[in-house]
Structures are given as C-alpha cells and as structure tokens.
C-alpha cells in the first residue's frame, strides 16, 4: 500500500515514515501543500496523510483543489488542532478520517488499515492477526480452534493490542485507549484484565500453548503476531 505523507514538520515526518514503513507501508514524503497537490494529482498512491497547517497551501485547500480536479483518493487529516470545528470541516471537505496531534503512529496505522479494509470490502467486523481472529459483533475471539466470549472491556483490550501487533503499550496507554481515562488512577486494572484474558483463552488449550499477549516487564504489553510456544 503506497502512502503519500504531506507534512511540513520534518521530525514528525521522520518518525511517522519510520513507523509506517515498519508496519509495511511504502511512504513518499512531501513537505508543502503545492508539491503535495501535484503528487496527489499525479496519482499512484492508495492514500494520503495530509497535515492541515502547511506552508503554501493549507491542508483543506489542498484537498479542495484535489477534489475539484477529480481525485478520489482517501485522505486522513493530521493536525495540531483537535477541536471540533476543524474536525467537522475536515469531514465536510471529503476527508475520510481525522487524527489529531499528538498522535500515536500505531493509531495512524490502525486507521490506515481500517480504510484499506473498507476499500477491499473486507469484513469490517473481523480483525485477523496470525492465528487470532476477533469478531466484533459477538465479542468473540477465535483462536486455536476454539471460540471464546469476552466481556466488552476484555475484548476492547485485545482489539487495541491487536491493531498494532508487535508494538509494546504501557499500562498508561492501554488505560487511556481502552478505558478512555487519561490519568493514573493508581490501579493494576490492566494487569488484572490481562490475567483474566489469558486465563479464559488458555483454559482449553494444551499445556504450553499461550495466547499471544506478551508481558514486557517494566515496559508493558504487546500482541505477538505468532503464538508463543513456551519451552
């Protein structure tokens, strides 16, 4: 999947490119609006990540011109202004999604994948990573031939980790995304939930086969794309 990144802040572009590349995307970076518009019209990209605050032409203007000239390429807006009017404006202009700074590259990757899935007409209610398949409607996890029902929070947690396989999330990040709380409530609730999930999923498995959520001591948790077989 080829991505066009239009972002004037070189350092943001740098780590974004790094993150996207390691997630398997091919990224072309352009650092101003005019060049971005030209590249968009030239074609050859599957998706555009567009910063709003750009020199020469701002992001909204770039999209407006591109749409006028017939480009239908999906666009994700990227901006420091996370407030509502901008967000609405972004959608009005024909943007497909909107992500506000400071953002996680992993979140961006997840959004890209969602748009890709929509485009490929994949079942949007299913997330498949390695041998694990999440079924959104039923809150079930299919793994190793068994299907297990999870509670809403458990399911959200697994889903969150699975969106960026291999990435290590801290407890704080997990709390923020899964419980939607951006403070430290001095709790070990994440650990409790991870334990529960493991218990539920490993219950019917033979000894030694474990659900691929890995604890990185002192750092956090990550979802491994392949099931770990403990020796």
């Amino acid at each position, binding site marked *: 999947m080829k991505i066009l990144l239009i972002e004037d802040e070189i350092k943001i572009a740098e780590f974004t490119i790094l993150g996207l590349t390691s997630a398997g995307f091919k990224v072309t970076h352009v650092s101003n609006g005019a060049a971005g518009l030209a590249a968009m019209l030239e074609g050859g990209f599957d998706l555009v990540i567009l910063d709003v605050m750009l020199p020469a032409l701002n992001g909204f203007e770039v999209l407006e011109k591109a749409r006028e000239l017939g480009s239908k390429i999906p666009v994700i807006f990227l901006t420091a202004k996370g407030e509502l009017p901008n967000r609405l404006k972004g959608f009005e202009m024909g943007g497909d999604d909107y992500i506000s*700074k400071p953002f996680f*590259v992993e979140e961006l990757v997840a959004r890209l994948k969602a748009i890709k899935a929509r485009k490929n007409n994949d079942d949007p209610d299913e997330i498949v990573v390695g041998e694990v398949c999440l079924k959104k409607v039923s809150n079930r996890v299919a793994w190793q031939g068994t299907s297990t029902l999870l509670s809403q929070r458990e399911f959200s947690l697994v889903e969150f980790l699975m969106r960026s396989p291999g990435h290590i999330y801290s407890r704080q*990040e997990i709390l923020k995304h899964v419980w939607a709380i951006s403070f*430290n409530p001095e*709790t070990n609730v994440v650990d409790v939930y991870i334990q529960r999930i493991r218990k539920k999923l490993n219950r019917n498995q033979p000894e030694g086969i474990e659900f691929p959520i890995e604890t990185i001591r002192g750092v956090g948790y990550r979802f491994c794309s392949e099931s770990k077989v403990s020796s």
Partner: protein
Amino acid sequence: MRNSLRWKIFGNIVLAVFIIFMVNRIIAQRLTPAAVRSSIKEYIASSVEACKDVAENRDRFLGCALQNSEDVIYGGLARHYILCLPEGSFSTEQSTICNQIRGVTSDDTAELVSASVEISEHKVNGEIWFVANLKSNPAGLMVATRQFDIDNYVYSLWNLRAQVVTFTAPFIIICLLILTWYCSSLIMAPIRQIEEALKKLSSKNLDQPIDIVPVYKEFDNFIAVFELLRIRLNESFVQARRFAGDASHELKTPLTILRGNAERVIARLPTGSEEQIRMRSVADEVERLIEITEKLLLLSSADANIIQHDMKEVSISNVIGQLVLDSQIFQSKLNITSELQQKIFWNCDQNLINQLFYNLYTNAVKYNIEDGWIKIKLVKTDHGFEFAISNPTTNLPDDLAKKAFDRFYRGDSSRTRDIDGLGLGLSLAQEIARVHGSELIMEVSTENIVTLRLSYPANVV
C-alpha cells in the same frame, strides 16, 4: 462601624442648620439693638402720627394705636404707652410721670422721626423714657414709653422666636432627613447602575461593552473611564488567555515528535532490557506532559469561553454506572458504594462529562484514607439531577473548600508529595460543569468527609 454616607450627609446638614440658627441669633441679639430701637421709634412715631387726632381720649387713642399696628410686630408695644396731655393724664400715677418727664430736659436734641413727630430720650429717676411729641406743639400731646418696657417687649419677642424654633425643630429635622435621603438616592442612582454592571462583569464576559446610559450627564465621563478600564482589562486578559492556548499548541508538535521517537526506540530496543524500561518511563513522562498540555488548552479555551462541545442526549445513569463498575475493579482496597437512579439523561458533551466524572472520581481516590470508602450518589431533582461523590480524608486544610478549585492546588503540600497529579482536575471539572449550565461545589463535613456535589441546573443565585 463604618460610616454611612447618608447619615454623614444628614449629620452635616443638621449641624449646618444649627450653626446658621445660632449665628443668626447671635447676630440678631448683638448687632441689631440699634436698628430695633430705631424701628421702634419709627413705629411709635407712626402710631402717634396716625392717632394724634383722637388724642383727647386716651382709650380711643390706644385703640387707634393698636388697630393701626395690627400687622406690625411691635403692635403690642402700644399697651405700654403713657399718654400725656397738657390738661393732665389718665391717672395720677401717669400724671406724675408726665410731669416728671416735662420737668426734665432731654439729654440730646430731639430727633425728627416722621413728618411731624419727633422723639427724644428723657432720663427720669434713673429710667430712660422715649418721648414722642408733635413738632408743631412740643408742649401739647406727648407719648412716653419706658425703655425698660421696650426692652422687655423685644425680649419677649426673642423668646417667642426661640419657642417657635423649638417647636418646629423636629419638623425641620424630618424635612432634612427626607431631603438627605432623596438627594443621596439621586446621587447614588448612577453609582448603582455601575454597581449592577460591575456585578455582571466577570472573566467570561469581559469582552462585552458596558451598556449603560447614565441617568445624569455628569456621569458620562465616569462611565467612559470605566469602559476604558474594561477594555484594557479585557486586552490583557485575552493576551494571557491566548498565551496559555498558544503555548499549549506550540508544545504539541515537539511533544508529538518526542513521543513518536520514544515509541520507535522502545520498539527497537531488546525486549525487556534496562534501556527499554528506562525509555518506557521517558515515554510515560512525555505522556504526562501531553496530558498537562491538553488540560491547559482546555482550561484556556474555557477561560476564553470557546470550549468546543458537541451536545447530545446522554444517559448519565449509564456513564456513572460504568464509572462505578470500573472503579470497583480499579480500587480493590476502597469500599465503593453507589446509589444511582436510572434513566437520568443530560444534554451534554460525552467526552467532556466523562472527564468531569472521572476527575471527580480520581480526586476521591487520591485523597482517600487507607482502606477508606467512596460513596457515589445520583438522584433526580425537579428539573435535573444531582450527583455527589464523598470520601473520607485526612489533614484537611481549613480553606480547602475555597481553594480546591484553584489551578495547580493540591491540598496540604506536606501530604501531596506522594500523590500523583497536577491539581488541574477539579478546576477543569468546574469549568466543564459551568459549560453545561451546572454547578460543582465542595462540602467538607466536620468528620473529615469531603463531598463534591454537581447539580444541574445550577442554582441561580
């Protein structure tokens, strides 16, 4: 006790009136006897002039004199006249006086007071008599009045005047009082106007012009100066506000870069290595900075009255229900109980009120006692609802309820060192409550129980 302007004005007016009375009295008593005497002489002369034709009959003469002087203040003096005629007087006593006066020559030359009457002063037996006679016939008709009687009469007039003043004093004072009240109300009216305008003025509506047309044009300048003050205040306020907002905005880009790179590094470092753990804690601190920045941005937009919100009908029973469920898992050591009425809806921004309730909850956790409890209550009221969250605490500063909503306030500083937080939560919660037309207050009981109470709609004071 502090002075009241009205009483002060009133006191001064009363004092002024008293002084005027006294000065008037002193001037009248000390400086006017000569004038009084000459006007008395004129009066005597005029009554003699008017009644000289009926002088043969004493009764008729006196009657005439009294009648002639009905409107004159000295009218009563006619009773003290002694009428001396060449053929003798009315009584022997008076005849004696008449003869004595005739026997004594005047000290000074007679003074012509009216057209045909002259008055001279005679000293008889140590007493001074004012004697009026016709110039054409000095030996004929003579009207004598003793100075003692004149003085007595004048004195009684003074007394009468003093009496009148005494009787009318209360009435005058009441009049003055009413006058003072009326005048001060007149003066106070524009001041009250400004007072009303000032009362409405807060940091939230500083940008709106003060819409007063003063009752009196004399106050135009005053209002203009006041308006200028508001403009200046607003300018510096906008500046300060913009600064916080701009600073937060500017911080976002470097923070994004910092976090993005930290996350990349964490992913690349050997799993579980010490470097990875250290990097994780760096990333967590960056996360904290981002959180502070976001809160400051939200607070500064609250100050600028430009909080963005997306109002929807939300079941707060569910929101709080979820909070209670979460909290029971979050805090296994705290005994969390709740009493929630179902099906309470609120037209609010889901995102903001989540922050509001979680902030209140976190506050209750952070400042709880060991193995303490939290009570959460949600009840319907007549027009809305009331939410309350209580927890026991220790080391309560006396001014907690006042200062709790201050930014960066974190309670007793000796205790809060080990409490993680910024001291922005409650002030943010209050701003969010305000945006939603509700009111957040803190109550502290004597048993060291802190209750945060959110009521919607806000109690209009």
